[in-house]
């Protein structure tokens, strides 16, 4: 008799049952351990190096040899690292949802038009109100992002070929908005341009607890929702007609999941700028590791995404010290070849 491929949890006497791919607990644990390792190494590295054990002690607010550690770790580096991980996880989940809804493994969270809307929102704010405080940037990104997502949804969702229509409308609108952005950017002064471009690249520079707290409500609502929708995502992954035949309330689920994806992407972009490729790559790696069933793959995808951004931010900080390269660029350097590999593989299999 073959070893079962899943864990079945079915406690006796209680009407609760749950099933998980056997690979998931091991992979998840390995990723968490790796993430913790990278976090500690990341936090201990920099102009003011700190030994790993001291890092852990400082995080736990235990006594260490040097009282300066507390500032470096708990105020400077830890919130930045945690923000990196959180944003990576959010983008990975958003990307996974888009890939499942569109049944297209090359889909990314940008397909909802959120990235284009967010960058346009920020640019318009900086151009129209040059003296505005930096604190309003995330808000304008969010408003712009969700606004465009809503517009694309309203324009595109109609009937059974909606996923394709949405991708096309999204691409078209993104192109149009990018053109508008370029026109605007050509007309403003160098200083503000630098600001905007830096923001657009996606960077964790100077990210602090306030950024993490800004992300918290979005995470608290949409991460559990996305993870809990695993069953529905499994059905939707088979196609909307099959999902309807299985009794899924497809229209409602599709709308709610799109909203979730747009919200997670918009919130992430609003705090760190546009970080590409994470939402594209992480779900793929997760599926390779634990298979396509969403109960496991979504959670693993979040861990992979978090690890990816965390490691990229670390590399950007440490590799060319004292110069910092934004995490967005490191991810693009890794992501672009991976994307080409995906294209080649999908072409080869046809």
């Amino acid at each position: 008799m073959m070893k079962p491929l899943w864990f079945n949890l079915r406690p006796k006497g209680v009407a609760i049952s749950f099933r998980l791919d056997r690979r998931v607990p091991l992979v998840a644990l390995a990723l968490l351990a790796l993430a913790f390792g990278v976090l500690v190494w990341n936090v201990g590295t920099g102009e003011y190096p700190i030994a790993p054990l001291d890092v852990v002690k400082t995080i736990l607010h235990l006594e260490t040899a040097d009282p300066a550690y507390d500032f470096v770790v708990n105020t400077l580096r830890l919130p930045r690292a945690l923000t990196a991980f959180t944003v990576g996880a959010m983008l990975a989940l958003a990307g996974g949802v888009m890939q499942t809804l569109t049944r297209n493994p090359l889909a990314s969270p940008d397909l909802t038009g959120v990235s284009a809307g967010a960058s346009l929102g920020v640019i318009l704010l900086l151009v129209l109100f040059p003296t505005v405080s930096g604190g309003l940037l995330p808000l304008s990104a969010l408003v712009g992002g969700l606004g465009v997502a809503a517009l694309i949804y309203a324009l595109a969702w109609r009937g059974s070929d909606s996923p394709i229509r949405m991708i096309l409308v999204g691409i078209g609108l993104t192109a149009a908005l990018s053109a508008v952005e370029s026109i605007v950017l050509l007309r403003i002064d160098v200083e503000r341009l630098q600001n905007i471009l830096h923001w657009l690249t996606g960077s964790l520079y100077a990210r602090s607890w306030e950024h993490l707290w800004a992300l918290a409500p979005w995470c608290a609502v949409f991460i559990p929702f996305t993870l809990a929708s695993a069953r529905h995502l499994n059905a939707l992954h088979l196609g909307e007609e099959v999902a309807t035949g299985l009794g899924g309330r497809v229209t409602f689920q599709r709308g709610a999941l799109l909203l979730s994806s747009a919200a997670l992407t918009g919130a992430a972009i609003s705090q760190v700028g546009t970080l590409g490729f994470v939402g594209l790559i992480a779900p793929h790696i997760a599926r390779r590791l634990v298979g396509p069933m969403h109960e496991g793959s979504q959670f693993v995808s979040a861990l992979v995404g978090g690890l990816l951004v965390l490691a990229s931010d670390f590399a950007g900080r440490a590799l060319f010290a004292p110069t910092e390269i934004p995490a967005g660029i490191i991810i693009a350097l890794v992501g672009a070849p991976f994307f080409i590999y995906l294209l080649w593989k999908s072409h080869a299999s046809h």
Partner: protein
Amino acid sequence: MSTLNTEHLSLSYDNTPIIETLNLTTPSGEITALIGPNGCGKSTLLRGLARLLKPRGGAVLLDGRAIHTVPTRELARQLSILPQAPTAPEGITVRELVSQGRYPHQGWFQQWSDADEAAVEKALTLTGLLPLADRLVDTLSGGQRQRAWIAMTLAQETGTLLLDEPTTYLDLAHQIEVLELLSQLNTLEGRTVVMVLHDLNHAARYAHHLVALCGGEVIAQGRPEEVITEAVIRQVFQVESLVIPHPLLGTPLCLPLGRTSAEQSPIGARIPMLSALARGN
């Protein structure tokens, strides 16, 4: 035994009417085949029966209840649909695909009960896929893959199965494999099957009840002998044919001779003579 029928059903795509005020009954516990030329509305009708299309007018009734009033999850426990050319996600195993059929029986807390497990085992056994259960669906042959999808609809444990062209992209061996399976399911389990078929001879051999559609209207319906006739085929397909009883099975066997317009094909002019010859005149 559940009865699926339509009452003054009208279906349209983007304001183009395909089916108008159709009254149709599919006998419960039997295999019904919808046949007709491309664009006659047979797939549209099947999708309307499966609530994939909202009716413009009229209703589809399952055991007397209009299906659009039944909550979709409850309906999914009575009616299953296998659309045309379904695609499975990459990297999914046969068992994982089949277990998706349990969706309408699962909930927040009950995500994998004993009943779910048993239904999947049974579906895999009925379709002969137990040895292949842990294989990736991508690595299966066309016939095996179609059997896996059918197994998924079986795991749903519905009284009625709807299938849209289940054999169209399969070679002869796989076509027979799938049709034999459906026939067995009907005989052994008493499930009602309604399917769209292109091949008239397959329909005549495997279905108990045929419905011939043309331009959204039912031209003929009934036993294969009543529907597969030269007159019906002429009217529905504009094809001249010879219909003889199958030498072994007795069911009607359709041998197409040529398009109805005699000038178009060299054989067309000789059809009357050939038909007469065949009938031994």
